[in-house]
């Protein structure tokens, strides 16, 4: 009896979960809802992206140096940016003195470069960083302001554009961080009087908008000072922004201080360290490392907030672009102006946040989850 064995026909191969089809199925077409969402999103992109690209690149006008080079045919007029570019960068800084700004920038880049190279030992980085912090502001101030060493003086009212934005942001950051650390230590202090003072200070500045602070610094500060003493307008804005952001910084640092277990302080006390040594050598290095994301967030907020000096009439990047868009010779190009400004701000803020993420990863010496 011959019994033949007929095998069951082969099952079809399982649905691929790898490669391009698998990826598409997993990420775009996993369920009816997802298919609908994907189609909707793709349609939105289809109606938004091509006109945008045409406006920015294909139909845009890049060459030329006057309004006549920008016929109104639905493309962006980047000539507007090209013509005003120097002004956007330096404001009203005199043409023949702009080499000073470039020199200062070059000095900063060259001297700060080792800080970003990983193979440079930490100790050298530390010394270089602290040295830069102490020396560079003096160099930059002498170069920008002049009036000594045979450099003609340039009044701060002439500073403008991206230069002014970076000056305000740089000074604000370097001043707000130490002040914020001191305020946070004060808030955590055992001494009731110091604690009350710090809490009042922090809560006051955090409770009011920056714009009223700037109003105050421009309207009320002259009233607070003895008659005849007058402050530079830029300095007044700097004081306002620094105090304001220091309060936010203090809260960020306080979060870090609270996360350090008490045992660390007790161990430091057992070793005979005083308050400042305990804080400076034991607590703060750990606490600051914990709150790097928060600190950088505050820096980013500060950088964006520099645009508010427009309210008190300083010509930072924001204001100088806004000013150029209201120029009767170049009316109608506000979109180009704002898109350019937005790109500049975005590049700075986004790279700051990316750098903080990489720093956070590198300094993460504890247990990785």
């Amino acid at each position, binding site marked *: 009896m011959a019994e033949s064995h007929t095998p069951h026909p082969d099952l079809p191969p399982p649905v691929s979960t790898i490669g391009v089809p698998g990826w598409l199925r997993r990420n*775009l077409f996993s369920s009816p809802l997802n298919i609908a969402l994907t189609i909707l999103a793709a349609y939105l992109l289809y109606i938004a992206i091509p006109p945008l690209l045409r406006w920015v690149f294909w139909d845009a006008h890049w060459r030329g140096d006057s309004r006549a080079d920008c016929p109104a045919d639905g493309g962006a007029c980047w000539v507007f940016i090209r013509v005003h570019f120097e002004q956007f960068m330096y404001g009203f800084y005199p043409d023949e003195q702009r080499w000073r700004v470039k020199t200062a920038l070059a000095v900063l880049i060259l001297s700060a470069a080792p800080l970003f190279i990983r193979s440079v030992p930490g100790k050298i980085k530390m010394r270089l960083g602290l040295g830069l912090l102490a020396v560079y502001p003096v160099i930059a101030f002498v170069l920008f302001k002049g009036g000594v060493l045979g450099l003609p003086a340039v009044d701060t009212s002439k500073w403008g554009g991206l230069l002014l934005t970076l000056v305000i942001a740089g000074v604000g950051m370097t001043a707000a961080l130490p002040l914020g650390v001191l305020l946070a230590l004060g808030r955590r202090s055992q001494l009731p*009087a110091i604690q009350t*003072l710090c809490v009042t200070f922090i809560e006051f500045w955090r409770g009011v908008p920056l714009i009223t602070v700037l109003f105050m610094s421009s309207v009320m500060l002259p009233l607070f000072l003895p008659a005849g003493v007058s402050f530079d307008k830029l300095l007044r804005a700097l004081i306002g922004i620094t105090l304001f952001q220091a309060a936010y910084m203090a809260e960020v640092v306080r979060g870090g201080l609270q996360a350090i277990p008490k045992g660390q302080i007790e161990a430091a006390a057992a070793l005979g360290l005083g308050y400042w040594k305990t804080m400076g050598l034991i607590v703060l290095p750990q606490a600051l490392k914990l709150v790097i994301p928060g600190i950088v967030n505050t820096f980013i907020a500060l950088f964006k907030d520099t645009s*508010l000096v427009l309210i008190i009439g300083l010509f930072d990047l924001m204001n100088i672009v806004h000013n150029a868009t209201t120029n009767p010779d170049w009316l109608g190009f*506000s979109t180009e102006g704002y898109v350019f400004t937005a790109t500049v701000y975005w590049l700075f803020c986004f790279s700051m946040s990316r750098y903080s993420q990489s720093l956070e990863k590198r300094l993460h010496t504890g247990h990785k989850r």
Partner: protein
Amino acid sequence: MTEPISTPVKPPIWNNPQVRAIMFQIIALVATVTFGLYIFQNTQANLRQLGIASGFDFLSSHSGFGIVQSLIPYSESSSYGRVFWVALLNTLLVSVLGVLFATLIGFIVGIARLSKNWLISRLALVYIEAFRNIPLLLQIFFWYFAVLRAMPAPRQSFSLGEAAFLNIRGLYLPAPQFQPGFGGVLAAFGIAVVLVIFLSRWAHQRQMATGQQFPTLRAALALLLGLPLLIFWLAGSPLTWQYPELQGFNFRGGWVVIPEMASLLLAITLYTAAFIAEIVRAGIQAVSHGQTEASFSLGINSSKTLRLIILPQALRVIIPPLTNQYLNLTKNSSLAAAIGYPDLVSAFAGTVLNQTGQAIECIAITMAVYLTISLLISLLMNLYNRQVALVER
């Protein structure tokens, strides 16, 4: 062999920690008070020299300027005190609307960011990274000068179904006109709310006693919508719409959203929503995946898992930073001054200050108002936070 016994030297008094603590505090207090007195004296001398009388008498004198948007009756003959109230209400209006819209968009984008759909989550990411890295002031300017200023003149307005119109003067919406009998609809809504409260209590008690569940949410929605609609229909639709109409060079009638308000609201909403989206994403991610798995293994379906397991735990993480964003939004609404929306900073600390010269009083009142709003919002959110906080045994 004996060692000489050294008597311990008493440390000098300035090294005694307690003495030091007291000394430090006295120095800090004296320095603060001296600084305050110095400023006070300078200010008094300056004010005397400038001939400015301090005090709040100016609040009752006539303002003499118009305000483009006011929620309460206001005219040029009103007092500066009235300007304060108009400005405060404008600030509150834009803040409340901003908080509502930003929360809505923020939650949607935050959840979209976590979507399994690659395209959707990328789009949400692009939105978040684009909007939160550009200064708010720039965004306000963009919407105001580049978008709304480019709108057509009233005669060529964009029309949305002949009911709403968008042009350079603003957004014109139909205004509801309540006819007699509409009070019945409101009353029906009130009754529905009371019924829903009783219904949810009864459903809870029944579930506790018998284990049977009742579709409370659906029943509540049906009550809240159905009862007022029924009365509305029975009363013969006591609601008509007043449509804006083109008369001469502008529209009349209806509700108008002025361009200043529209651009400010658009900018602060989109800006704050980007931050809220990140907060929501972080909050949901903070709930461990084991919670979802445990819930599924107990046989709870996915919508109930989200509502009963994930969200209550995520809200604990979300609420404190969300409060901060609400505060930021309220404070950021002061940027209205840059485009002339008549809020507190623009109309009161700007125009009134310039007209009267009462710098200290105006700035002090403005700051006090913002401080009060900040403290109130954080108080309310703290109360809510206490409700959702972890109850530890």
